[in-house]
């Protein structure tokens, strides 16, 4: 019981540290790819400290509550995803719960931005929704392929089955590739940073955010990076202990970063069509294979 409580407290902190490390790393790595020197790895942390100490504006109660809901939703999601064998709440919710809990973060941001009454926010939300509709198709196909293959909806069971045998990526390479292809869309980074395109719609949902609102959104983004990559590692790369899990996450993240640092931004309709084409086809074929065998 005590171990459980401690892990409930510690796990979000680990996730936060890893998330911030990844955020800083991505800025540094992208800078190096651009042949720049880049900021220090702690730069996202500096930004958040600044933002917390900066004043901001609020448009109303919902404006505050939405941001809080968004971050809280991301924090609890961490507790359901096994991280190196630690999953304090895995018995309270399976993959289906995880899929649904992933809703809370965008819902919170959308509600909060909606009260700001800035059309840029509305455009950002509508783009987020459409992009989500785009990437959910291959995402669900890949998740269903894994669940059908292992005949379980529990993420812990999936990880356990992989540890005693080969990783799922060897049985289900196509869904894994499809998941990897839509990972930038889920993270909202280039070439899929359509939602927060600063040059087009003035950073979309975050247009009215400043100060603590932006700080919470940045923290939420750090959690979000952790969650999406940890889910990939759990589903296809067989989990692992604390160290190997982290190394696997790092590898996946860097691979994604190398590919995506050099791409320009897609338009929203191009992004939807892309998601519904190759990733969806690959994941669907993978699902059919998993269903038949």
């Amino acid at each position, binding site marked *: 019981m005590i171990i459980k409580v401690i892990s409930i407290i510690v796990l979000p902190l680990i996730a936060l540290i890893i998330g911030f490390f990844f955020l800083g790393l991505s800025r540094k790595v992208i800078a190096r790819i651009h042949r720049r020197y880049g900021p220090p790895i702690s730069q996202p942390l500096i930004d958040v400290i600044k933002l917390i100490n900066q004043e901001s504006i609020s448009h109303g109660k919902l404006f505050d509550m939405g941001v809080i809901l968004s971050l809280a939703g991301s924090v609890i999601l961490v507790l359901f995803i096994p991280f190196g064998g630690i999953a304090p709440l895995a018995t309270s919710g*399976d993959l289906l719960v995880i899929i649904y809990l992933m809703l809370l973060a965008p819902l919170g941001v959308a509600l909060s931005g909606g009260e700001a009454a*800035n059309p840029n926010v*509305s455009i950002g939300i509508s783009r987020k*929704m459409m992009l989500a509709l785009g990437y959910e198709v291959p995402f669900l196909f890949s998740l269903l392929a894994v669940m059908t293959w292992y005949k379980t909806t529990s993420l812990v069971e999936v990880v356990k089955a992989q540890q005693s045998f080969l990783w799922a990526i060897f049985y289900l390479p196509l869904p894994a590739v499809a998941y990897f292809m839509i990972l930038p869309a889920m993270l909202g980074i280039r070439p899929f940073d359509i939602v927060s395109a600063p040059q087009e719609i003035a950073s979309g949902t975050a247009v009215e955010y400043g*100060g603590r609102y932006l700080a919470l959104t940045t923290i939420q983004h750090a959690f979000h990076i952790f969650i999406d990559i940890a889910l990939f590692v759990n589903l296809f790369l067989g989990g692992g202990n604390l160290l190997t899990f982290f190394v696997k996450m790092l590898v996946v993240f860097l691979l994604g970063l190398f590919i995506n640092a050099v791409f320009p931004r897609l338009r929203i*309709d191009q992004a939807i069509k892309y998601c519904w084409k190759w990733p969806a086809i690959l994941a669907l074929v993978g699902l059919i294979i998993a269903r038949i065998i």
Partner: protein
Amino acid sequence: MQLITILVVSFLGAGIVYLTGKFSGRVRDISAVLVSLAVVILVGLAYNQKIYTNFYSLPFLNLSLSLRLNYLSWFFAIIVAGIGFLSILFSLEYIKDYQGVGFYYFMMLFVNAGMLGIVLSADFLSFYIFWEMMSWGTYLLISYKGGKAVAAGLKYIIMSVAGSLAMLFAIVSLYASYGTLKFSSLASLLQIASPGYILFLLLMFVVGFGVKNAIWTLHTWLPDAHAEAVSPFSAVLTGVLVRMGMYGFLLIMYSIVGLSLLHKLGYGLLNFNYILCWIGAITIVIPTFTALLQNDSKRLLAWHGIGQGGYMVLGIGVATSLGIAGGILHTLNYAVCGALLFFVVGAIEHRTGGVRDLNELGGLIKRMPVTFIAGLAGISGLIGVPLTNSFVSKWMIYKTLIMENYPFLAFAAFIGTWGTILSVYKFLHNIFLGQLPEKYKDVKEVPLTMQIPMILLSLAIILFGILPGIPLKVISGIEKSFGVEPLSTTMFGMPKEIGELNLINILAVLLVAGIVVYLIFSLSAKSRRVNQDDNYAAGLFVPRGKYQYSARFYDQAYRIIGPYLHDVVDDFYYWLVGKSKSSFQIVRQIYTGNINTYALYILLFLTLLIFVKLGWGL
């Protein structure tokens, strides 16, 4: 006796309300509320009882009309009575300025009574009588507003009559074969019937109930009817009246035919249940994505009514203990969410003068906060955000689909949820969020009698979302009566052997996380409250009301998926109507409308009779 009391109170009450309306409007309103409340209490008191009564024996045909109460009928009866009561309460202010209010209350109570009759009847004859009462009452209520509503009502009644006739056909054949129409005796008699006959029966009943439950290809009446009816009745329509079809499915499939017979129908994958599942899946996907294209708030919700019906059909189609429970639970959950959302639309209509166009509204959160919270609860429930009610029922349906190895059906259900998210978010955003147009500056919150139903239903959404054990207890009783292995449940979710779901833990960590985040939030530098029109606009100042984005909300997605979502079924029916019109021209030449011609026909017919008689006589 108890059941007869319930029916007598509800039918007689309707009449009394109509009569008192002749004298005083106020007395009529109060008595309508009291009658519907009395029905709720009477039904509530009948919980956990098993009753069977014969209330009338027909002097011919060797049939008797009888009533019964079991878990299944109690479950539906309490939904009917509850939603009926709340919509009457909601009507008090809403309907005030309409014509013929007395008639409206009478019909509302009458339709409610009809539905109670349906769920309480114990034989197909009384079932059919109450079914027709409900259908025709509904027709009158849909057309209540006049204008476009008349066409919508006509569309409804034509499809409904077609469905009822299919059902009548099956009922007559049952009587012809077995000489009885009692559910309990039929259930035992049908066990030795041939699979072909069972399939015929099921097909006829599926058509009959499918029209009501609006499964795909029989759904076209529903969007028009829901959009054109008055909002409190739309709530009844979507929440309970349409779900009478669901009751019918459960009755015929599990209560009468039974699970063991159902499994024998078909070869391999091509069996009755699997096809029903696929119909359910199509009913989910196409209507929810059609809802994405709607700009009329009620029409949008109406398409969701069809789509959510698909989840129920999918759930009971899988025919596992978990699936049936999920399907039945979703009936309750959708009744709560759907009714609530129609109340919200009704509240908006009431205050803005009947505006339903989503592109014209906006920013009403500042003026109608209670309605906004109700709307938020409603859409969360419809989506199935964790800790709201539909989450549990959808979880059960997904879980059983995956465990039974139907990943493609599960995918249809999942992607339907995403269609739901997109369109209901647009619904909420365009009505309540964004900038407040100048013309709605003085809009006020709705009166208390309209707030109470919305608040109660919002609370129900949260309550059933955290404590799904309450309805699931009744549902496992229903499953026991079906002869299905009953679902073992706990108060806060599912026991370990079924799956990992514990809502109280999710609630607890969400609360703790929320408090921690709130502490961080409130300890950081304060924010300044600014007016809504103090917006970033690239250094410009945009005056109030001119800075809104809501029309064509998902334009890029429409362009991709829009062309595939044309309602071909509706087109087909209209084509059929057009074709049959020309063939009816021939009939019209016989029925000229001239008295002389008819007299001639009578004369000719009599002569024919005389000739026949004479011919036989000779």
